[in-house]
Each structure stands twice: as C-alpha cells, then as structure tokens.
C-alpha cells in the first residue's frame, strides 16, 4: 500500500489529474473504495457483485481499509454494516438482485437511523425463475426505502458516484444512506476506458461527531440513549413524533439535492435539449440511447436525451422543465415493471406525450435500433391521429 494523502472530495473528483485505464466496472468500484478512506467493508458472495468485493477484500489485505469480513447472508451483512456505522465508521458494502431482497428490511432502517452508508447495488434479475443476468427491477422495489439512489451509466459513473456518494451522504444535514446502482454485467463486467484520480489521494476520514445523531461509542453524550426508540405508544403524541421523524428523513433527502448538484454536476444531464423528441433514461439504457441518437441523427430525425443520474431524490422539476417543449418522450428501461416510466409520468403533465418503453429484461440486451423503432412508431401514431383530427 502506497501512502495516501488526504484531499477534499471536490479536489479528488474534479481537480486532481486523472489517469486513463482500461478496466471493468467491478475494478472501477474497487478503485473508488481505495480512494474513499473506508474503515470497514463486509461482503457476501453473490453474482455479479462478487468480483468487486473480492477486490475490496484485497484492498483490506493491502491496508487501504481497516476491517473486512465475509458475513453469513445479506441480511446479516446489512445489519452488521448498520452496526459498524452506528459505531462511527465509514462503511462500504455491495449486493445484488436476490441479495438486495434478502436484506430488504434493513434499508429503511439505515435511512431512519440516518446512517451515511454507501452500498453498491449490481442490479440483476430476481427469482423466479432464477436469473443472474442484468435487469434493474430491484430499484423499483427500493424507491421508497428512504435511501438516496444514484444510477450509474458505466464504470466511470460507478467510480465517481461511489466517491460522490460519501461526500453527499456524510453532509450533516443529509446523513442518509446512498445506494449506487449499476446494471450488472452490462457495466460490472464490461472493460472500458476509465479515468482515475491518483491512487495516492484519499477522502478525509468520516467524522461521526458532525452527525445529526450521536455515535454509539460511550464517548458521545448523552449516556442514556437507544437507537432508535420505540416511538409506538398508542397515543397521538407518539404517532405524531413517529410521523415527524419520517418527515425529517424525507427532508434530509430534499437537502441532498444541493450537494448532488455539486458532486454529480446535476441530478440529470441533457443532450440536445431543444429536440421535440426526448429519450429519458437511466443506467446503461442511457448508453443504448446514445447510440440510438446517432442512428436517428443519421436519418435526419432530431432527438435529444435526458440522463437521470439521481433516482432518489427524483429531479421532478428539472425534468418537467427540460421536457416542457417536447411532444414525444420515450423511456427505455431494463425491467418489466417500467418503474422509471411511472416516475416520469407521475412527474410530468400531459402524459400522453410519454411512451414507457422499450422494456427489456431477463438479461436481454437492448438494441439501439429498438429505441429508434419505438420513437418512429410513436411518431407515426401521432401523425396518424393528427391527420385524422
């Protein structure tokens, strides 16, 4: 292990000179953890997350992180990470698909307990039938757990978002868990050109004393404290206290917007903003959409792209503004439920403009031509109905 110098997140993310490398998404996340000054990581084997957590294990061996072990199942991993975070450590873990669902009960707990945990989710199909292939239906199930949700397009995003995740999660007024989501295999196993900041830099250590809740170390007052107390007496006041706690968790997520703009450069990103036809996507569906834009441009069809980087908080206002002039909005996604389409529709007015599709799942790739077909099909339908009117 080389000696690392502490630098502020802004410098690490935006100013430090970057070196180009040709690595997989799994390697990219380990590179982020290497620079994140993580105290503790806990792992459990699950495809396609395993490679990255093997590499994180090696970081432990090399001394970049201070403790690491394999726990007995994902629920236990997430509970142990919860414990480590209560103890004041900066923690990292990762899971995937069925593992996410096995640990489901813990995610709202993290958020409610205001823990700045960063967890990578290498999305895959959930049973049944069993699948280890890419699909992001698990994100649709996590939308209301209270954690912040960032969706990486590729290995570069994955790397940067893990680092940005700590910077945002640990803001005293935010102090919430951040899930960094990436589509398994499409991003984790693809080798790509990735720009890395120097390995001799790292984030400043986490300071639990700035947390909005006390640390469990018997070094922090008050002495008499339980996390989190049973606010469940059967009376109006304890019901109201419980509800207010939830409001505070929602408020903390709202407060993260400002920091997400700083560290992600915005909750969404727009390409060809003036186009009347817009694709709205997140994750690797963005990559496929970029290719679709090329195909459309080659045919002289003017189309633009909105990449949603933050799913929670969701950029409702930015999205409404960016799409206000559009008359066709297409939302391609890698899951059967179409959760992003639903989010988009719920955020916009004039829903008839929105086509929720194409949707691919079960491990299927999304040919860019399919997005083009969807757009042309929707245009044809519109022209027909316009002609008929």
């Amino acid at each position, binding site marked *: 292990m080389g000696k690392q110098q502490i630098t502020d997140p802004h410098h690490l993310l935006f100013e430090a000179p970057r070196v180009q490398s040709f690595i997989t998404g799994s390697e990219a996340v380990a590179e982020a953890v290497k620079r994140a000054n993580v105290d503790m990581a806990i792992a459990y084997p699950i495809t396609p997350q395993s490679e990255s957590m093997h590499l994180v294990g090696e970081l432990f061996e090399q001394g970049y992180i201070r403790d690491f072990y394999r726990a007995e199942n994902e629920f236990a991993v997430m509970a142990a990470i919860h414990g480590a975070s209560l103890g004041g450590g900066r923690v990292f873990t990762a899971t995937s698909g069925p593992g996410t669902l096995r640990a489901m009960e813990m995610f709202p707990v993290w958020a409610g307990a205001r823990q700045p945990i960063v967890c990578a989710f290498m999305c895959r199909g959930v049973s049944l039938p069993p699948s280890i292939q890419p699909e992001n239906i698990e994100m649709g199930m996590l939308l209301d757990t209270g954690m912040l949700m960032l969706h990486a397009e590729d290995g570069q995003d994955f790397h940067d978002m893990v680092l940005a995740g700590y910077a945002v999660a640990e803001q005293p007024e935010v102090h919430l868990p951040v899930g960094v989501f990436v589509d398994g295999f499409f991003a984790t196993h693809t080798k790509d050109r990735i720009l890395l900041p120097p390995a001799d830099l790292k984030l400043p250590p986490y300071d639990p004393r700035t947390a909005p809740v006390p640390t469990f170390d018997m070094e922090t007052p008050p002495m008499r404290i339980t996390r989190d107390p049973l606010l469940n007496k059967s009376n109006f006041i304890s019901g109201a206290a419980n509800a207010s706690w939830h409001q505070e968790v929602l408020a903390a997520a709202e407060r993260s917007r400002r920091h997400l703009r700083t560290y992600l450069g915005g909750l969404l990103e727009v390409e060809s903003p003036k186009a009347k036809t817009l694709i709205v996507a997140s994750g690797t569906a963005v990559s496929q959409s970029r290719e679709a834009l090329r195909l459309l441009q080659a045919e002289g069809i003017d189309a633009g792209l909105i990449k949603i980087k933050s799913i929670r908080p969701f950029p409702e206002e930015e999205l409404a503004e960016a799409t206000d002039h559009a008359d066709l909005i297409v939302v391609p996604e890698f899951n059967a439920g179409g959760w992003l389409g639903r989010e988009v529709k719920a955020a916009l007015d004039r829903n008839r403009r929105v086509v929720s599709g*194409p949707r*691919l799942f079960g491990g*299927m790739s999304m*040919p860019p031509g*399919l997005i083009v077909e969807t757009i042309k099909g929707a245009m044809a*339908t519109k022209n027909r109905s316009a002609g008929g009117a």
Partner: protein
Amino acid sequence: MNEMSYKVLPGPEGFLPPAAASMGIELPEVGEALVEGGVVSAQQGLEKIVEKLISAKNPVFFPGPLILWNWKDGVAEKAAALKELAEAVGAKIIPMPDYRPKYPMINPAIEVNPNHPNLTIWHNKIDVCVFIGVHCHYANVALKIIRGGTSCYTIAFCGEVGHEDAMISLRGAGLSELKKLTELVKKRKGEVKGD
C-alpha cells in the same frame, strides 16, 4: 395504441413481443375457441385447425408430458387418438418429454423444449405446430417465444382454459375433440381427393 385491435399472428414479431394477454386478448369461454385473438365457436375453432393442418407443408404435433406419459386413466386413449390424428394429417410427432431447459444442447431433430422451442422449429422447418398435453405455464411461455422468433403457425389443444399466445386455441379439449378432428381431416382430405 388501440389494444383491442391486437391480432395474434405468426411472427417473427419484434425483438421481444408482448404476451397476448397483456394486449387485451382474453381466453375463450366454455363452448368457444380463439382464432388469432378473436373468439369463435368451438366448432369453428376445430374447422380452422383442420384447414391449417391440411394446408401446412410441414405440420408437427408437440405432445407434452401429460400425454406422452401414461400416468393416469384416460391418457392411453388420448395418446392413441392423437397418433391417429397425426397419421390422418400426415404430420410428424416431436415430443416434449419434460420442461427443464436442455443444456448444453438439445437434439432439435427429435425433441422440443418449452424454453427454446424455436431450435426445433427452425431445424425441422415446421410451419404449423400443435401443442397438446403441455402444462399451461410452459405452453404459454413456449407459444410466446415461437411467435417472437419464427413464422410458425401455432395451435394449442388445451384441456384447461386455452392459450392466448397460440394462433388457434381450444379449451376443455380432450378425447372427443381429437376424434372429431380426425374425422374432419379425413372428410376434408376425401373432399380434396374427390375434386
């Protein structure tokens, strides 16, 4: 999109076509059959099957476990009736002995599998196929895949409530329907010869 106008026709239909039930196609009631997504009488359904079988270049029956295995009373009779029907049509029989995906490979010349039925259809150049004795879930999955990837015309002979993803589907069909079909085929073939 007007969902009610959806037609269940031979493919290949798109990259990942939807299940017909998600496009508004409903299963037939007792005494009815489905033809290309529309409801007709059971008798019309039978006649349409005969028409398709007789005009096919390479019609093939895909019997599933419920009829291939002599596992309960009544199966042997149905099996015999199916053989007779296939002979009357001049169709081949390719079995679907079970439902597990066959990896690393299947011999598409001699069997069919619900997880990758297209391998068998492509290999044998089947233009009309009939599912019979296949548990509904696996039949539906297979019929949808076939519609997605091939131009094969699919017929489903169902002892339960039918299949939207087949181009023609009977419900509550059993021994008597098999016999009726054989009769109709023989009659039609006789007519054809008579011309």
